């Protein structure tokens, strides 16, 4: 799997329970909402525990990669995005996107690369919201672009930004990956 970007790397290798979680919890404080942390650990039990801890503390557990004896866990810090007001006027539901997947459209996934890596719609293009400004030229202004994120907030900002820059046919997909029931894939080795 290609390198997954993380805002913070925590090395908990060689530490045994409870230290990987103790350190993760502490490091989470230094992260901004919506940022991604990579936790490297060798304690096999950390996989189940970090998932359970993330669930109970409201953070997003994205997935774990195994590389030899080392585990790389990816977490995204809880954000308030669910409550953000949405402004882009043109929207599509998950179902509408799903029924159009075989058409001539572009699916743009603006979540962090770590979120995309573990679960995304097949053939979706990955440009995290934070990189959209500089990578917009990778997209075609005439294409019909369905913008997707986890809950529809980041994709709303991305859709507005694209529209401001002359993209003609941009739809914000609601709610997005959090309720996606169609096909997905993940990056593999």
């Amino acid at each position, binding site marked *: 799997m290609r390198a997954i970007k993380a805002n913070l790397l925590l090395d908990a290798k060689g530490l*045994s*329970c*409870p*230290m990987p*979680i*103790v350190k993760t*919890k502490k490091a989470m404080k230094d992260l901004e909402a919506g940022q991604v942390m990579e936790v490297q650990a060798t304690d*096999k*039990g950390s996989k*189940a*525990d970090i998932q*359970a*801890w993330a669930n*109970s503390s409201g953070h997003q557990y994205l997935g774990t990669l195994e590389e030899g004896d080392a585990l790389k866990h990816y977490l995204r810090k809880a954000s308030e995005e669910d409550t953000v007001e949405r402004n882009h006027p043109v929207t599509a539901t998950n179902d509408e996107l799903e029924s159009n997947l075989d058409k001539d459209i572009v699916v743009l996934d603006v979540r962090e690369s770590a979120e995309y890596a573990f679960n995304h719609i097949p053939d979706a293009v990955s440009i995290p919201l934070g990189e959209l400004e500089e990578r917009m030229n990778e997209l075609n202004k005439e294409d019909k672009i369905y913008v997707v994120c986890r809950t529809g907030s980041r994709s709303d900002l991305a859709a507005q930004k694209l529209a401001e820059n002359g993209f003609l046919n941009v739809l914000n997909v609601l709610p997005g990956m959090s309720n996606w029931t169609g096909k997905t894939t993940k990056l593999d080795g």
Partner: protein
Amino acid sequence: MAVNRMTAHEVTQKIIDKRELFILDVRNEDAFEDWKIEGENIEYLNIPYFELLDGVDEIFEKIPSNKDILVVCAKEGSSVMVAEMLSGAGLNVSYLQGGMKAWSEHLEPVKVGDLKDGGEIYQFVRIGKGCLSYMILSDGEAAIIDATRMTDIFLDFARKKAVSVTNVLDTHLHADHISGGRKLAELTGASYWLPAKDAVEVTFQYNALEDGNVVKIGKTAIEIQALHSPGHTIGSTSFVVEEKFLLSGDILFIDSIGRPDLAGKAEDWVGDLRETLYSRYKELSGDLVVLPAHFMRMEELNDDGRVAEKLDVLFTKNHGLNIEDETDFRKIVTENLPPQPNAYQEIRETNMGKITPKEEEQREMEIGPNRCAVR
């Protein structure tokens, strides 16, 4: 207040004596739901350790002051942390040494009976996982039956008893735990016996166990007579020791019977299982003491910690031996079975010698209850 260390052996004694114990299990909820320390007078509280990183104030009032308190986690580390926090708050608590890992690997040797000319038979109760192994001693020699992978414990015991291990036997190809049989045979030079019909795919040398084989232990010759009793596996074999004991493997337990589905052949083997239990076992003496390879519930332990009962008692009390109608029987043992044991396919392959996982992986594979039975 003090933080004390409690060993798996001490916890076992408390359970056998039916003493009261309050367990604060700090593993995550799935792990606790799946498998925990069981006992008649145990009260539980399950709060994952990561919920307690900021303090134990919230659970303090849920912990009784009049009972022994044991904090338990997977490997020990988190339970020490939580025990220290509780101790700092003024409670007298213990943690389980080695955590559930040690619990899963603890074997408690219990004597089941005497054999002729000073011979003895011991049961090794793997209390955390419900596995039962046996050692038969006679005149300086020993046979080990259905050994678990904790081979040191058997070897230490044999050393203490000043016997040399001459024969190692498995009643069948196990699917719920990794057999220590082959390793014991390698370490001691003993012969390793496996039922031929279960061993078609094994990658190592073994002695083929067939119906009617007699294995002799010691000069006075305690006889272990093999009785082909298919049903849990196609090769499943029971052993009759000195016309006194029936080692029933995973065919017949105290309060349940073996399940026929762990090699994916439930439909094919259910007939064999019925034949074994309702015909072959019926022909045996009712005075035989049944010594199974597993127990499922703590209620199956006798007051002294042994798991043993006379065959004719089981013919009256064990529900699995009292299903008159063959269609009902078929239904009960093939439908609504409990979940299959953790990693049972990999465990079977390990026992066939096809794969050789590292010790840590073997430990992971065996996590959880054994689930070899249908009630």
